[in-house]
């Protein structure tokens, strides 16, 4: 270019250049944001698996909580798993032949696994010392709510539980997915 463009024109060219640069950058960045946000917006699959057999009904003795694992199908991104451990729960029965309750082992405070202390007869969270009674009520510690009870029923000689996960750290019980 033989003639030097005036400063005003150069300023305009700078704006155009920056605009084109921004446009090309947007082509990767905008879809990229959608790409990253997509999985975050997905639920954890439908309403979770149906009732799963976790134990024999006779195995649950009164006053002796039984820790069992729920094994069932799960979808995880592209994977479809037919038999994986979905989580654990405590089966509790107050009296012989009485009804059975199931509590998720996930502590509603920050998600640690809750143990049962046979000496005190309470559920204790090993992480932050939340304690719960056999009905799942919070007796102390930082947990914002009692243990999460899971839907359960006895079918023949089997105990079936509908395993679910709940949001932790909130006073309100809120299922995930």
């Amino acid at each position, binding site marked *: *270019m*033989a003639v*030097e*463009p005036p400063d005003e024109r*150069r300023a305009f*060219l*700078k704006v*155009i*250049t920056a605009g*084109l*640069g921004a*446009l*090309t950058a947007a*082509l*990767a*960045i905008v*879809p*990229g944001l*959608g*790409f*990253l*946000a*997509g*999985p975050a*917006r997905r639920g954890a699959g439908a309403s979770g698996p149906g009732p799963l057999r976790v134990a024999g009904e006779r195995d649950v003795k009164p006053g002796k909580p039984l820790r069992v694992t729920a094994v069932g199908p799960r*979808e995880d*991104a*592209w*994977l*479809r*798993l*037919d038999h994986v451990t979905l989580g654990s729960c405590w089966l509790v029965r107050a009296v012989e032949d009485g009804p059975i309750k199931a509590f998720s082992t996930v502590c509603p405070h920050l998600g640690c696994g809750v143990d049962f202390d046979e000496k005190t007869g309470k559920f204790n969270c090993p992480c932050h010392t939340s304690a719960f009674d056999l009905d799942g009520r919070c007796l102390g510690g930082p947990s914002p709510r009692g243990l999460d009870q899971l839907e359960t029923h006895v079918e023949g000689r089997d105990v079936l539980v509908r395993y679910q996960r709940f949001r932790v750290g909130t006073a309100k019980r809120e299922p995930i997915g």
Partner: protein
Amino acid sequence: MSADGTPAAPRRTPPKPLRVRAWLADRLGLEELARTVAAGQVPGGASLWHTFGSVAAGLFVLEAITGILLATVYTPSVAGAWASVAYIQDQMTMGWFVRGLHSFGSSALIVIAGVHLLQVLLFGAYRRPREMNWMVGLTLFGVVAVFALSGYLLPWDQKGYWAKLVEATITGSAPVVGGAAQKLIQGGAAFGNLTLTRAYALHAMALPAVLIGLLVLHVRLFRRHGYTPKWSLSTEDAAGRATPTWPDQALRNAIVGALVWGVVTVAVIAHHGAPLESPADPTSSYLARPEWYALPLFQLRMFFEGPLEIVATMIIPGIATALAFALPFLDRAPTNRPGDRRRVLAGAGLGLAALACLGTTALVKDRRDPAYAKARAEEKVRGETARRLALKGVPADGNVFRNDPQYRAREIWDDRCAGCHGLAGTGGEKGPDLKDYNSRAWIRGFLANPDGPLYMGTAKIEKGMKPVEATPDDIDALVEYLYAETGAADADAARAGRGRDLLPQKDCDTCHDFDGEGENDGPNLKGRGTPKWIAAVIADGSHPLLFGDRNKMTKFRSKLTAEQIDDLTKFVLDLKGH
């Protein structure tokens, strides 16, 4: 507070935004940087010729961004690679677009880097004092090529798998170090998980580091020596016509960049992302073809067979590469004028023409080859099936075809049925051969020789059925009757009716009832061969309406689930063909 402890005089504080800017500029040396950038000059004036290097760098940034995005999902394992890529392609928000940008962006990068190289060649920009930068540039081009080669294995689909297998074998054919190099690439004696993890580590970690390092060096050396103006300009002329890089050259870079981006985007949308074939199947016989940029080499190999193959795979490419690196020292021309460098430019032109010819030959040959078209069509069906099945979720072992009832049924068949029944039309071990089961031909053969080796003969049933003796016309009618009972839609109702009327006359009714209710020695013929009937035979053939106490087949009711029996029934129904 000043050093002697007296309060310092209040300084005039500029408005806040300026203060922050000045603080940052002071710490980061921003003004210096801005001055350096602004001071850049293009001798001879800004030009479209000078845009390609910047556009190539921009494409690399696009590859980096989309590559990082893909890496948030991609899983380098034999079981997970294809499944995760199919998930990106078919299920994720904008997944196909991001993957398409990465794939077509890499092709664009190779093209633009190639054009950049040709421009440097044309302008004589490889000559003194830029010899080193020419070699750095060539190395960068090589790194981009390795990027591409390692990248297209990663989806672990048929195309990537087989192309990479061929390349690994070519590497293995190199003298002395070949075998060791092949094992290094593969991570062992054969292709497997380590092949993928190695290719991934190379593609996503090692190569980016190498490329960024070389790119910094490339730009550094470019800044040292500057643009090479057009050969027709004297040094004084070029200096006189110089224009600032920012914004004059930058604008041209941005325009060409935007054009290339546009082409890439259109290609991505037109192809709905990048192609993804069916998962790698090492047992298949796949017609392997490399990506477009490797086609010339592929075609070159066709001319050198047997022990001479190494000429095409190593010697010719090796000589070409060595010549390219040595070019600045071989070129003794007095000026940058093309007229003074005829031999160099003619050599480069010939090389380019040869690449184009070889590539085109490979493409045209495949386009004219019906076997190639057939293989592509088969792969298309297989690929579409696999991706449709993947929408239901891929099993942990990565075998997406397990989602297909037919495939599952075939597995059950191999496991439970093939021991007794044949499928090849050559007879079974202990039961009828089911090739073309329930077709008119199968029924006709059965009536002619029920106790023959293709039918019940191998089951060794005591007092089995005797061959049906009748005129050809009557046989036709009986076949049609049985054919109609299977529920076949194309059965001739009139002829089938006549066949039914013939049953008592041919003494069929001695052993068979045909009302769906009567229990007799042989199976009740009502609805024989329908899906329900087949499922019932698989479940328990000893039902009084079926084979009764003559049944010799295993009762699968307690061995298979209802769903498995259903799958198997469909499998058996499909044996008839269409």
